[in-house]
């Protein structure tokens, strides 16, 4: 018996007689499960090896409009595959990950599960997803149209690919140029850095009406700090720890404190109030700020809200990385390790990404299609909006610059909340920028090390 097992039995003997039985039962049950489920890694299965019977569940996230579009694609595939019984489980982004976490713990993830580049590593590392290399190699899942750099960036540390991208997005700066023009301002130079943006905002603020700010406070946004760190020649993640310096984070906090104190960004309490609201209720969407940042696939939601109140038009430009290729992320499909109809699941994924009609239905709400020929067909389609075509052109530029999909390591998700807390402590005067930066780095390193 293992050393661990001897320790456990020793502890059990020290328990009172009445307490031994239930603890022993629970312990044996839990340890048996651990032993039973601790099998070694198997080779990625090919098409002839995978199960192909039974229904499949498909789960994904998004806004109502986005979910309706995906549902339509699913319905179309279902009409072509009437023998496959499908259950769909769409939900909002935040609740999606809570649900998948619970399903992962119970080995009950839907056959086809949406993943995202910032979350997928946790499920890959835990063995919840099926390695798809075999299905890719034998052509069951056709990824030939996806740029190699994009596909390869999904390869996990163990050398396998678990997730096939279905929607590419990139972080960019969002501008409400018509409203800026109303107040006699021109948009900031999109080739600059976040520091240039803040300088511009402080100069522009005096011409803004009361209750309108030139720029959103992005000090609490990890993805925007990532863009800033890239501009400083640093990265967000290193090997099991953060990849940026304390000085860089300190100057980031100082930058936004300067924006707030200069009146160009909303005060901290207003910023905190709007931190957790949906995109359609954000300060940019309600016209209270005129420059902000988000993923390119979110701007349609912002525009819907602006249109309702006639508050301008939002456009997206390159992220303020000071010329460095910006961060690209991806929504993707994975097949769960517990799936009983892998064949149908693989066919669905292949169809989803390669069918040009799907791209027209989705209208890039889930991100830009990953297959180059599908993107080109959107560019050539006269019915596709110019805004989408501009995003596609920007994405092609990014690819030319060598951009790859940024896959976050496991444990990184905690940083999203942590940087918000650290920045808010600075913004509300509870601590200094330097102390908050040091504290954040310590916490982030602990999270990334698997504490």
């Amino acid at each position, binding site marked *: 018996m293992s050393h*661990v097992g001897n*320790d*456990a039995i020793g502890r059990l003997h020290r328990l009172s007689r009445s307490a031994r039985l*239930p*603890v022993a*039962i*629970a*312990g044996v*049950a*839990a*340890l048996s*499960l*651990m032993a*039973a*489920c*601790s*099998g070694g890694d198997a080779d990625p299965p090919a098409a002839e090896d995978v199960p192909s019977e039974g229904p499949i569940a498909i789960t994904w996230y998004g806004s109502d409009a986005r979910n309706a579009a995906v549902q339509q694609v699913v319905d179309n595939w279902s009409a072509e595959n009437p023998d496959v019984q499908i259950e769909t489980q769409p939900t909002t982004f*935040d609740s999606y*990950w*809570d649900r998948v*976490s*619970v399903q*992962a*713990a119970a*080995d009950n993830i839907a056959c086809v599960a949406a993943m995202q580049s910032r979350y997928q590593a*946790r499920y890959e*590392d*835990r*063995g*919840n997803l099926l390695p798809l290399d075999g299905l890719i190699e034998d052509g069951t899942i056709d990824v030939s149209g996806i740029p190699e750099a994009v596909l390869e960036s999904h390869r996990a540390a163990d050398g396998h690919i678990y997730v096939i991208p279905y929607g590419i997005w990139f972080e960019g700066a969002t501008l409400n140029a018509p409203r800026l023009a109303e107040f006699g301002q021109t948009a900031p130079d999109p080739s600059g850095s976040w520091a240039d943006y803040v300088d511009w905002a402080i100069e522009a603020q005096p011409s803004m009406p009361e209750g309108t700010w030139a720029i959103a406070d992005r000090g609490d946004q990890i993805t925007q700090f990532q863009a800033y760190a890239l501009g400083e020649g640093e990265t967000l993640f290193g090997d099991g720890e953060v990849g940026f310096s304390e000085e860089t984070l300190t100057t980031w906090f100082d930058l936004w404190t300067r924006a707030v104190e200069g009146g160009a960004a909303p*005060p*901290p*309490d*207003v*910023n*905190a*109030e*709007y*931190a*957790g*609201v949906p995109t359609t209720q954000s300060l940019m969407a309600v016209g209270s700020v005129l420059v902000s940042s988000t993923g390119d696939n979110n701007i349609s939601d912002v525009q819907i809200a602006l249109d309702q109140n006639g508050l301008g038009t939002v456009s997206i430009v390159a992220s303020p990385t000071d010329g460095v290729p910006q961060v690209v992320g991806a929504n993707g499909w994975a097949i769960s390790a517990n799936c009983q109809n892998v064949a149908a699941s693989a066919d669905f994924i292949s169809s989803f990404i390669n069918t040009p009609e799907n791209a027209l239905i989705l209208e890039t709400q889930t991100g830009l299609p990953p297959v180059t020929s599908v993107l080109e067909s959107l560019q050539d389609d006269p019915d596709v909006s110019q805004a989408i075509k501009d995003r596609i052109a920007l994405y092609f530029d990014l690819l030319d610059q060598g951009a790859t999909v940024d896959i976050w390591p496991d*444990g990184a*998700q*905690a940083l999203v*909340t942590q940087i*918000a*807390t650290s920045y*808010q*402590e600075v*913004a*509300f005067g*509870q601590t200094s920028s330097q102390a908050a930066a040091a*504290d954040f780095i310590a*916490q982030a390193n*602990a*999270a990334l090390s698997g*504490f």
Partner: protein
Amino acid sequence: MIDTHGHAAAESARSETSGASGRPRRRDRPPRSAWTESQRTTAAGYAFLTPWLIGFFGVTLLPMLASLVLSFTNFSGSFRTVQWIGFENYRLMFTVDPAYWQSVRVTFTYVLVSVPIMLIFALTVATLLNKGIAMLGLYRTIFYVPSLLGTSVAIAVLWRFIWGETGLLNNVLDLFGIVGRSWIGHPDTALLTIMVLNVWTFGSPMIIFLAGLRQVPAELYEAAALDGAGRRKRFWHITLPSISPVILFNGILAVIGGFQAFTQVYVVSGGTGGPAGSTLFYTLLLYQRAFGELRFGYASAMAWVLLLIIGAATAAVFASGRYWVYYGDER
């Protein structure tokens, strides 16, 4: 078991009725049932209890014990990678995780401040409703509605509407020339808004207080009034002692509920515990660690520590009851 006992009973009956001559020694008796009346009653009792027993053992006790075991592991959602790590989760919790102590501070502040205020408010309203006013049932229903709404997602919208930068409260303050702030967006006041939400959901204890007030004998008030006791004295010396067991009951429920408070802060803070960690309740951090970071082992350890905290707090309230709860002649 029944067959065995039945067989033994029949053998016993034969040996008692047959002697060496084969004649019966005693009066013939019908074969006895395998179970006595008492055993049958007990078995029926357990049969009726079976659904509860299945629920208790299957849905409550075993999962609790499993979580106890998991608290000594690094379980992160997959049994493929789980390892026994002893008390490491508890060590990390108490010595490494800075958010842990923040969550403890926030939760204790919430319980110590909001629970007494909520109980006082509920008792005050119950006392007013006990005056025999017209449409009592209507008022009771209206006051109970917040208890039903208090943990709904709609509250997040309502609370922003009231406590936000452009919210109702600031509009009222503006009438008096006072410049407000975002009350839910500032760390000095965000927890206060959650406490108000807790007080606002006073309906359940109010109903229980009202039931308790109805049980206080009217002749006690009459006798006190004849002796010249005013309203305040009657309330202090008759009402409060008479309903002190109800206060204890409500207090214990409120303390337990306070430590377990989750939904209110989850919907109001959007699950972040912000701003600046000012509403980071213990249960919210537990939830973040479990479902945000998939650290189920660590979260299980947190849950067991919370259980101990709640047990200790409940015991303390119970123990204090010896000094202020009046049980009539049993005191």
